[in-house]
């Protein structure tokens, strides 16, 4: 179980990737929110879905 968080003296790559990805999604979502005129709720839902899909992909790649 520790391998998900720590591996060979550094953060595990899936965890690191999720942290980076999450930060970029938040910053990117903010930028899109500011430059588009659509519904904020729809955008938040879309960003959450993209984030979830990305996290699943990262851990999927790590497992398989």
């Amino acid at each position: 179980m520790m391998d998900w968080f720590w591996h060979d003296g550094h953060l595990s790559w899936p965890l690191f990737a999720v942290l980076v990805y999450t930060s970029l999604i938040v910053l990117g979502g903010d930028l899109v929110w500011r430059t588009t005129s659509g519904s904020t709720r729809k955008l938040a839902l879309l960003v959450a879905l993209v984030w979830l899909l990305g996290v699943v992909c990262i851990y999927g790649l790590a497992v398989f």
Partner: protein
Amino acid sequence: MILLIQILVLGALALALTQWLRHLPYPSPLVRPLLPSRQRWPELQIREWLETTRFHPGYLRFFYRDPPRMLPEESGIIAPADGLVTSYDARAGVRYIVIALSFWDMHVQRSPLDGRVTDVTPSGDAHMDGEGRDFAFLRDKYCPVQTRIALETDIGPVAIRLITSVAARRIETWVQSGDQIRRGQRVGRILLGSTVVLEVPEEYVCTRELGSHVRAGETILAAKAIG
């Protein structure tokens, strides 16, 4: 080594997120350069600065910009200011073409025609509302502070009236009575202000529709009525 790189990357992202959180709901300094001016400096934020009179230096740099302008090849009366045309009524032989400037418009005014400055008349006090009150702290009140630059031109008397709003603070004029000025020459600037009125003889009509955006020194704004 890998851990160090990971810490550096995450540290940079943490810094970016901290900046983002600190500036919410306004844009963080990281995304500001990527945004168009209205999103970069939201109106609500500018109004907050007006209340505190502590402006972001980046906004002031943006506000004080004075880009060169390309005069149109065709002759005609050019717009003295950037902004939206809000009216062009005529009264007593004079047509008043009103241009409303927003917080994001360039605020340097330019001469509409070649001519000679016959008068520069300020009225109201630069920091007061005319009734002894400091208008910077008032809201929703008409402020009479203005400067009228009168010109003698080939088409007759023309004037540019620089008017402040309650949000504005003062007017700079860069020409004096007796100066010969060229079409498109810079004549002044309203600091954080608001309205420019071009006065031309009544037979000249505004060539732009109400609500259209014009650019100082570039847009032909008025022409002699045909027939």
